């Protein structure tokens, strides 16, 4: 038996939801061809072109139409191809999907999922590489999900489809072919629940999506080379985020580092660090820290692109620096 990959998990989740509920449908470019990453392969031939719908390159209309279709009782899953393209649908997400329930006084809900393959892929440059999860976390009304492992991808995509809120579902482009899970006996993921994927006492690292894998690699190096055991929390959802799990861990280790691929300035790490500082100011023994990208666009050339890439070596260096602080 081969291990489930991230793309298989994504496929299984949608397949199961399309089978379970006739009101679930998917729309996006090239879905009939299986989608850009194969996450939709075979679904159109199985469920028909009216439920797995090929869309024109009209990102704004895809999302706007999904809002109307959700108001009418269906549960659309919108595929944005890569997250950067979904910026063409910002009004539809921010002013319409996120606001409709509230500004109409609860007369309607907008149960839609917008899937956004995101993040750096080798040499995809400034318009195909961004990580903008902090933007979405800032918008009241949205749920923001960022699975790092195949089992979480499956459980959370299914939960997102069943959720009555509009969900921004961020799937990192480097994760599609990955498999494995650090805790196979852990209960299935729920929206809003983080998971401790490595236990340790020296310091708490909070991360999510692809950057979490770099944190795991860094933790292995720290353990084997320096006997430093860090605790790693996979946040799994950015909004709502699991404050209790993060606070409990930081209270115990008394040190916290947030690692993400996104630009550090006003990234979601700032929210986590600010919150932990407000709650645990006297308890912490080192200043809490964020590790993210410098505030420059992503480049094409590998040597330039590497300037914005958080990697295990940088995480190791940051952890050692923090531990040397006191």
């Amino acid at each position: 038996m081969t291990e489930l990959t991230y793309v298989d998990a994504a496929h299984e989740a949608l397949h199961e939801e399309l089978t379970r509920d006739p009101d679930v449908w998917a729309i996006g470019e090239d879905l009939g061809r299986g989608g850009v990453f194969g996450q939709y392969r075979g679904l159109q031939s199985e469920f028909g072109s009216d439920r797995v719908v090929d869309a024109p390159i009209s990102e704004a209309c895809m999302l706007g139409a999904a809002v109307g279709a959700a108001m009418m009782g269906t549960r659309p899953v919108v595929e944005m191809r890569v997250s950067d393209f979904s910026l063409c649908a910002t009004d539809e997400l921010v002013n319409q999907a996120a606001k409709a329930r509230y500004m109409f006084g609860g007369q309607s809900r907008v149960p839609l999922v917008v899937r956004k393959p995101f993040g750096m892929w080798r040499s995809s440059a400034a318009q195909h590489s961004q990580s903008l999860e902090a933007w979405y976390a800032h918008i009241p009304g949205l749920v923001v999900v960022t699975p790092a492992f195949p089992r979480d991808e499956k459980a959370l995509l299914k939960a997102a489809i069943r959720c009555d809120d509009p969900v921004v579902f961020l799937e990192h482009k480097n994760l599609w072919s990955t498999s494995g899970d650090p805790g196979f006996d852990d209960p299935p993921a729920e929206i809003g629940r983080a998971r401790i994927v490595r236990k340790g006492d020296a310091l708490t690292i909070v991360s999510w999506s692809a950057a979490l894998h770099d944190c795991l690699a860094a933790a292995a190096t720290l353990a084997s080379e320096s006997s430093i055991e860090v605790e790693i929390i996979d946040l799994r959802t950015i909004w709502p985020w699991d404050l209790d799990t993060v606070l409990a861990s930081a209270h115990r280790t008394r040190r916290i580092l947030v690692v993400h691929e996104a630009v550090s300035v006003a990234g979601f790490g700032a929210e986590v660090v600010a919150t932990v500082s407000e709650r645990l100011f006297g308890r912490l023994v080192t200043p809490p820290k964020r590790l993210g990208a410098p505030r420059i666009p992503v480049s094409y050339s590998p040597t330039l692109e590497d300037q914005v890439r958080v990697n295990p070596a940088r995480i190791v260096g940051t952890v050692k620096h923090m531990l040397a602080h006191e």
Partner: protein
Amino acid sequence: MQGKTKGMFSDGSDSPDQSLDHVFSMYRDMVRIRALETVAIEALEKGLIFGALHPYIGQEAIAAGVCANLRPEDVLLSTHRGHGHTLAKGADPKRMMLELFGRKGGYCQGKGGSMHIADFSAGMLGANGIVGANIQIAVGAAHAIKLRKEDKIVVCFFGDGAINRGPFLEGLNWAGIYGLPILFVCEDNAFAASTRTSTLTSGDGADARAKAMGIPSVVIDGNDVLETDRTAAALVEKARRDQPQLMVARTYRMYGHTATDPGHYRPMAEVEKNRKNDPVLRCRAHLVALGMDPEQLICTETDIMNEMKDAAASAAAGAWPTPEDAYADVQDIGSPVHRPFQ
């Protein structure tokens, strides 16, 4: 106008019903819209209604004529200038007034106001503060209707200003490629906010653009409720057969862009000329010609005005939303709790 052959309309006729009763019913709708807005504008001037209010006065024949051809289960998407569509689709003026006054029990619990008025129970899926955004929501609603094989249509109103936004192109294309049950209605009042639309629109406007995308289009005098009704009747029937349609209704705003905009950018002569083309006056004249007693029309207008004044008075006495209400209906997962500033 009556015909009872195998025609295209649901009752088997070739022509829609334009009997005196039918025209009088549309007249009542028009008068109700005008009365509701007249009372609302007075309340705005007294500081009882807040924010921007975009009057529909002068365009009432379009909402009345189109909605006369809709069923309760049909769905309507509106614009920032949405009171007329909302009322004509069947909303309760008392709950509309409560919303405009920002009170509890308003359609949106005081969270939407004039610009986001909506009555989902009447199939009115919202006025929208973003020009053109409703076009895409409307095609999505129609897409869901088709997916679920339901027997209803969507009507989407928008203004002439919306045709220069992307959603007009993306939305009409969407309706065309998927063959959706939708009627688009462009209410061309000649002004996009305070700019004459023709000065900033390349080519021949909505009608030409729709036709270029394979969406049939008809241009009508939107101040003539009879023509609006007749045209809407025919186009609604086509929309019910999954043939998306556009109706361009020429009209004129009697107010500025908002109730507080004096509209000085419009020549007085033009405004005066259009006042003589008032759709309510034209419909009244038609009813009198059909044999209606002018006294009865005056009584109707008085009754309606009193109804709207009563609605405003009870709204002004309505309870305000509580601070806790601000935290309701944000979202299910990750919902905020009411935590006053510390």
